[in-house]
């Protein structure tokens, strides 16, 4: 195994990690703020992918279709949140069970609308080629995805650290009651975070589509990976989600290349280590 093997898998791993970040960032923020474990988060991803796919089929531009998929997914997420989940934000078990039921319903709805066959999603034409450096060949789209994810991560970090909304979110995570006592509209922050989580996951479906494609059951496959990210990074930490995503993406890529029979297992090696020695995750606080 030469250097080519490592570079190739490292790039693939980073690209896969980037798409995991689009799912796990929402998962971790929604949990950190509202104590809701959103098991429908990867179903949001899948829904976004299918909506985007349909729009591209009607001649839409890739990016616009992805954005529309994200916005529609966000609208659905907000509807479910305000109608049902909102009441249970302090009750992790009930809200978890509700998101589980919602994921089942959404899955079956997707199956009813788009059928059971896998759909490939083509990257936008301008990024369809590949880059060759010496004997290395990798798709341009991988690099684009890494870039976009890093950009989204940067926007999220800046919003959390530099805006009034970010201050409110961080304050509510630290001490919700105190924030409420000071007259902060914490509920508004709840809505915004849930909406943002659904938007990014839905958008992620289209962005990640050229790598994962779209098929029923994909959400079930991605969910454990997203959880692995959140466990490794620490529940509620955006930094943790970022580092965790890249780590899990890399472990996934090298695991698949080196131990094909046990690749799924290898992803959980870092998870098991974290669980044994640092249950709160790399950047998390004790649960």
């Amino acid at each position, binding site marked *: 195994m030469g250097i080519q093997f490592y570079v190739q898998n490292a790039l693939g791993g980073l690209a896969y990690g980037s798409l995991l970040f689009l799912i796990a960032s929402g998962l971790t923020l929604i949990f950190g703020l509202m104590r809701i474990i959103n098991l429908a988060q990867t179903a949001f991803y899948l829904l976004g992918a299918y909506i985007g796919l349909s729009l591209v089929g009607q001649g839409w531009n890739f990016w616009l279709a992805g954005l529309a998929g994200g916005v529609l997914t966000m609208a659905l997420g907000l509807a479910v949140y305000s109608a*049902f989940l909102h009441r249970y934000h302090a009750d992790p*078990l009930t809200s978890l069970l509700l998101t589980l039921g919602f994921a089942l319903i959404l899955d*079956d709805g997707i199956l009813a609308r788009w059928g059971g066959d896998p759909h490939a999603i083509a990257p936008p034409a301008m990024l369809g080629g590949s880059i060759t450096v010496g004997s290395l060949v990798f798709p341009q789209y991988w690099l684009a995805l890494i870039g976009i994810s890093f950009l989204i991560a940067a926007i999220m970090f800046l919003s959390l650290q530099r805006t009034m909304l970010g201050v409110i979110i961080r304050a509510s995570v630290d001490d919700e009651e105190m924030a409420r006592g000071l007259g902060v509209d914490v509920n508004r922050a709840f809505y915004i975070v849930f909406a943002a989580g659904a938007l990014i996951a839905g958008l992620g479906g289209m962005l990640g589509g050229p790598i994962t494609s779209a098929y029923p059951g994909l959400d079930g496959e991605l969910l454990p990976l997203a959880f692995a990210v959140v466990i490794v990074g620490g*529940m509620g930490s955006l930094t943790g989600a970022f580092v965790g995503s890249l780590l899990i993406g890399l472990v996934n890529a090298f695991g698949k290349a080196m131990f094909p029979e*046990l690749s799924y297992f290898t992803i959980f090696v870092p998870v098991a280590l974290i669980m044994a020695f640092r*249950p709160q995750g790399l950047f998390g606080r004790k649960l």
Partner: protein
Amino acid sequence: MSVRTRWAIAAATGLIVALLLPRLGVPTFYISLLTQTWIFAIVAMSLDLLVGFTGLVNFSQAALFGVGAYTVAIGATRFHITGFAEVIVLGIVAAVLTAALFGLVALRSEGVGFIIMTIALNEIVWGLAYQWVSVSGGDNGITGIVRPHVGPFDVSANTGYYYVCLAFFVLALALLLIVVRSPFGLVLKGVRETPRRMLALGYNVWLYRYLALMLSAGFAGMAGVLFAWYNQFVGPVTLSLDQTTQILIMVILGGIGTLYGQLFGAFVVVFLSNELSAVTQRWEMILGLVYFAVVMYAPGGLVALVPRLWARLRGRRAALATEEP
């Protein structure tokens, strides 16, 4: 009549009906579904021991169930272990050992943390079953499992096997009822309600949770063994997260913390999914909606819902209000 007598009569009537059903000309298809109901009731009760009595929402119950099932399959096809008693014991031991490992990791956290850890643990086992093709057969699973003889009896036919599963269900229900009424069971309830206070009283909360997890795994493994013989095929679906979800739905639908309620939960899920799948392709959605409605509007499950509706029908709302503490 005291409550106790009424319960005894209800249980005896239920058992007699269950024993007679195969003799009353009920179609084999339904006998087969009922067999499945007994099996899933066992694993649902085992999960209820954790969710309802210990306060541990274990999302890796399907893995424990599946370990029991895979023990049968791997034992039969690789090691030619096919005796009835030895396979049951092996399946239970394998599930308990798995739980002993899981507990070391998952019980380092509580509440939501425990849920997330057990989701991950379930997926690890699923990943092994799915990808370790040389041992588990991968996605194709393992076929060629043959139902054993129980002593002198051949139970390979559906009716015979129905009775085997019924017997195990009754055994499991009786044992679990004894457990939750024992001093050990009372400590578990204390751990569920106020772990901190139990700690202050000198109980080793961690150890009680650990023991409950292993005990529950024993029953889950037993159900897994029965399921492998029932289905005569074991695949990764048997221990998927979806399977955990389905078991959890049975627990909630039946009524958390009741044990006997899980029989109704298992019955509804098994029959609904089979009957609905014959009528419509959208049965999963309907099941999801039912489940959603139960979580929202009937958190006590069917066991709590039915008497309430019944009382309302008979206009006993006032009487009911005074009965409730």
